[in-house]
């Protein structure tokens, strides 16, 4: 039982190991603050060869070259935004894993919220209409039915009172 518990713990420990990092030792900057910034920037830049990995995760040659450029620019004193701009100027917005919020992407970012609002609006309208409508829109009882109903409710037929 104890060995099983230990096994379980070990298993959990290994499950939480993150994905392998593509950054190679010689790429890492001596300045740890700059290196940390480089890592953050690398995480938002797409590797254009694999397209669904960031350049921080990718082993592709182009990703490595871009990682080196990011570090070069930072060392040269560029701000984070300037570095990202350097890359988008050459590869376009597609290189950003998270699309920017601008006029051409309003629909992309606002679309889901607009759909949700539209849905709620439609629901509210539907509920209002239902409440406003006649609750029971059926034909009235005939005289015969009324008489039978009265007989039933007077208890003459031997039902429980």
């Amino acid at each position, binding site marked *: 039982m104890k060995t099983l518990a230990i096994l379980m713990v070990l298993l959990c420990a290994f499950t939480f190991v993150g994905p392998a990092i593509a950054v190679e030792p010689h790429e890492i900057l001596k300045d740890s603050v700059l290196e940390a910034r480089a890592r953050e920037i690398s995480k938002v830049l797409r590797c*254009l*060869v694999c*397209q669904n990995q960031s350049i921080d995760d990718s082993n592709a*040659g*182009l990703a490595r*070259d*871009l990682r080196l*450029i990011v570090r070069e620019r930072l060392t040269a004193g560029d701000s984070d935004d300037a570095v990202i701009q350097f890359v*988008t*100027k*050459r*590869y*376009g*917005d*597609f290189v950003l894993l998270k699309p920017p919020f601008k006029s051409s992407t309003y629909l992309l970012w606002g679309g889901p919220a607009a759909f949700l609002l539209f849905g709620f609006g439609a629901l509210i*309208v*539907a509920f209002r*209409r239902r409440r406003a409508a006649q609750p029971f829109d059926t034909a009235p009882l005939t005289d015969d039915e009324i008489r039978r109903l009265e007989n039933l409710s007077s208890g003459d037929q031997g039902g429980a009172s």
Partner: protein
Amino acid sequence: MRLSFVLPIVFFASLAALFGVYLYQIGPGGKDIKQIPSVLIDKELPAFKLPPIVGRKDGLNTADLKGKAALVNVFASWCPPCRTEHPGLMLLAKEGFTLYGINYKDKPEDALEFLATLGDPFKRIGADLKGRAAIEWGVYGYPESFIIDRSGRIRYKHIGPIMPRDLEMTIRPLLEKFSK
């Protein structure tokens, strides 16, 4: 008919139509969504300066490209599709069009052998040993070709090998158009 009945149908029909249009575009023979449109189209040529392949005397930089419509081809001897498209480049050169080469991350001896075996269609070639010039051009796959006009602007980008169909339908007509 009541509006609340018609409206959802119209709404979903228009959504389906929209999706249909996009699906059709990427369907057989349609556009490849993996190809990323270049942001450099209609922009000034990127600044770059490349030495010749060791053993040659040319090299390539931004100033070399100005004044004439031309095709700039990024190639490497290790890239199989580059070999596929090479006869097409030879044909264009024979027809009198100007071609420039950017030799991407290649060993000089391999590059020279590639040109000796398959022919050299290029007016000048620059050796991009570190791949930095390719990044200036926004290159991410090999081969890639750019068509530039005489005012020194990039007018078209072709990603992947120039197949005979591409050559006939787009590359040659564009080169002819910008050469005028």
